[in-house]
């Protein structure tokens, strides 16, 4: 048992963490490179970068469009994310482990706040799972992994909370530690290869949309046509191809008098 725990703390953790870090960097760079290539191959170069930037920022603010449409979901999701991000990064125990092993440490949350955030994240995971399972439109859009993710993410939080706050037998503690380490490692390994990669891809979401809407040229408009939504306004600029502009530009009229003058 102890050997398995040490494996989880040592090689497995290093593998999972490095894979997560490099994997996320990789997918970020690949996305950028592929977007750049799509842009390069597309004759329609008009991208409204100001709008792309505004949209990107807007999606990071929880009180945005989603807040007006689905306030409960938006709030739960925001709190869930807060707990999910803050606790693993700033839990005092984690920070002191980093300090011990690398010599670098950083600001850490007070234990009470960390406990509260953990409970919020756990509740958030449960609510999000239930909403997905019982809200028909969400259910229609969900794949199997979408149900699994909130549950998997809850495991390290639950075991971590129990280890800190509930006194259990020594073997029970070891089992929980084992579960904590291995579920966290599994999550870290999966992050760069699943939808959780949105943790680093989120800033690119709008620029990807803006470029792929026009790649191949006119693709987005054809999608709208197919869906019967031609009238729906989109924030992406209409294609103004260089060629089209060239063809539609009015040629300066040559007056007959000048023509004659030239001819003579």
């Amino acid at each position, binding site marked *: 048992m102890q050997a398995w725990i040490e494996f989880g703390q040592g*090689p497995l953790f*290093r593998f*999972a*963490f490095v894979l997560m870090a*490099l*994997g996320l960097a*990789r997918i970020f760079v690949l996305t950028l*490179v592929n977007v750049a290539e799509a842009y390069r191959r597309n004759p329609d170069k008009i991208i409204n970068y100001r709008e792309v930037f505004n949209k990107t920022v807007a999606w990071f603010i929880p009180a945005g469009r989603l807040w007006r449409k689905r306030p409960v979901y938006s709030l739960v999701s925001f709190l869930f994310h807060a707990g999910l991000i803050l606790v693993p990064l700033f839990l005092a125990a984690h920070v002191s482990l980093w300090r011990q092993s690398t010599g670098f440490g950083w600001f850490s949350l007070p*234990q009470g706040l960390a406990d509260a955030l953990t409970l919020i994240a756990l509740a958030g995971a449960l609510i999000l799972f239930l909403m997905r399972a019982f809200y028909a439109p969400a259910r229609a859009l969900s794949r199997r992994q979408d149900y699994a993710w909130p549950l998997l993410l809850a495991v390290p939080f639950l075991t971590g909370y129990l280890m800190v706050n509930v006194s259990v037998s020594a073997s029970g503690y070891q089992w929980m530690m084992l579960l904590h380490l291995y579920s966290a490692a599994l999550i870290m390994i999966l992050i*760069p290869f699943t939808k959780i990669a949105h943790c680093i891809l989120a800033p690119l979401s709008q620029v990807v949309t803006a470029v792929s809407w026009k790649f191949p040229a006119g693709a987005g408009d054809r999608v709208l046509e197919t869906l019967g939504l031609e009238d729906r306004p989109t924030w992406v600029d209409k294609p103004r191809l260089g060629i089209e502009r060239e063809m539609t530009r009015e040629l300066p009229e040559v007056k007959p008098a000048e023509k004659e003058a030239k001819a003579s």
Partner: protein
Amino acid sequence: MNRVRNFKLFLWALLGLGAAVGTARFMFGLGATTNLSDAVPWGLWIGFDVMSGVALAAGGFVLTATVYIFRLERFHGIVRAAVLTAFLGYVAVAVGLLFDLGLPWNIWHMIIFWNPHSPLFEVGWCVMLYLTVLLLEFFPVPAESFSGLAKVRNFLVKLRLPLVIAGISLSTLHQSSLGSLFLIMPYHVHPLWYSPILPVIFFLSAIALGLMMVTFEGLISSYLYRRAPETDILAKLGAAARWVLLLYLGVRFTDLAARGQLGHLADGGWQVTLFWMEIALSAAIPAALLFIPRVRHSLAGLWIVAPMAVTGIVFNRINVGGLVHQQRGETLYLPAWTEIAISAAVVAAAALAFLYFVEKFHVWERRPQDPEAAPAALPRFDVASFASLGSPLVRSRTLYSLAFVFAAAFGFSLLSGEALSSRGVDPAPVEEARGGDTLWIDGNLDGFGTAFAHRRHVERLGGDSTSCALCHHLNVPRDRQSGCYSCHRDMYSVSDAFGHDRHASPAGAALGCFDCHAPDAVKSAQSAKECADCHKDLIPAGAVIEVEDYQAAGYTEAMHQVCLGCHQQQAEAVEKPDLPRCGTCHREHKLLVDDPLLAQRYQRLESRGVIVPEVLEEHFQGIRLAALPQEPVTQIDEP
């Protein structure tokens, strides 16, 4: 085109592994990532990356000489590939060297600080200049693709002959002087390898290796890209190589005979086995096979001979570079897996660069079909999920980066915690200082200590109990004026003055976790009780040295801090500028080392090179270790 893709996938994985190990090497140093030691400071990285790297790149100067000087135009088809190999080989040498240098950021020093007596100085300069020459020689090839560079290209093409001549001269110089490096070690390198004509031997084998490497590389690339190999050209290279190999073999054995070392061949032992293996692989079997025309002209024959000769001569460089150095009772050096990973990664990077240039530019007469640039290819779909696998370019990009990332993560998982903390310093437990009024302070009992006039210092500092606390800044519980050794327990490493396990163990204080740690907080030093909460008299009144975290510095460091801190202040206060100098305290080594009883032990310590600036012998006539405690040396503080 799967061959190229799989090969590149493998190379990218090697690169990922190397990236992980390389990070560890630059973060934690050579001691943590290699099996090198003071006894074996040169290992695989010098033997393979540098010595073999330079030799493997010899094809460049051999073929440019053949084509541009001797005008053998039939070899023209492979000269560009040979120059590219040489260029990348030298870049790999430079990169590999950075891993091996203890202070890689000082690599430019040889440009400014000249040491013309050193063969390494010559090697460094030649390699640097030859790298420049190779860059200029190869630059016209990629420049063909950019019309803006036409003028530069034309200029360089005109400059080709001088460049080629410079390249040949520089190669001759440093290929041989890599052998000269070992001339300084006549008793260190095994006599079967050591020779005063090592430079000649190195130069000859480099020519042979260059020819064989060009052959090998032609075979590999024709396999990868499924192109017809230039068998007739390769056969001619082999025909030339057999004479060089034969000459090399002759020189090796004539040299052994002339030096009268042939007798060693009957010695037995692993070195002799190694010697025969090396000779067989590098020269004897390849030369014999190359004399058979059928072997020379057949693909299979070349596939056997070229890799064998390349392996053999690389083997020779590794042997001379470190493997057959006399080990003087130390354990045999074998490279750590981390060293192999770095070497492999450097080679992989060079190979990837080679494939890049070959695919993108006109290195060969007929450019291979670029597996990644197939704009007309139909998209491929995964059979199971019908997901598009993307264009070939996107697919390979995805796959290569995935291989890199997985290999890097795997590499990091293999670098265990123990490997990351340098094995650097051996534990050196500290012994108590002996004596009474004069203390003999010599923590590791190696004789290089100091006679400390304890009584004299007490008197100087006031003579009452407060003067004790100026140095004795922390007591062991239920003790007064505890000796330095009781906390500073190792000569060089930090030791734990607190002793967590002793507090927790039933055999010690038998405390529970929550006797010290707050129950609702993370168990750390910060959240635990202060020591002074239980041990009321731990820190004596008047102590000026503050205890911060109960991590006791190494004995040497602690002694120097406590003594020198005061001496530096006093030097100004009493106007004795010599007070903080080494010789003020360390002045009696020599006499003690002269003690016949200890002489034997100090012989092995001679090399430590302790420098005693001013030995005031008149004060210490007749003092011996045994006599120290009885004889207080009261004049110590007098000028």
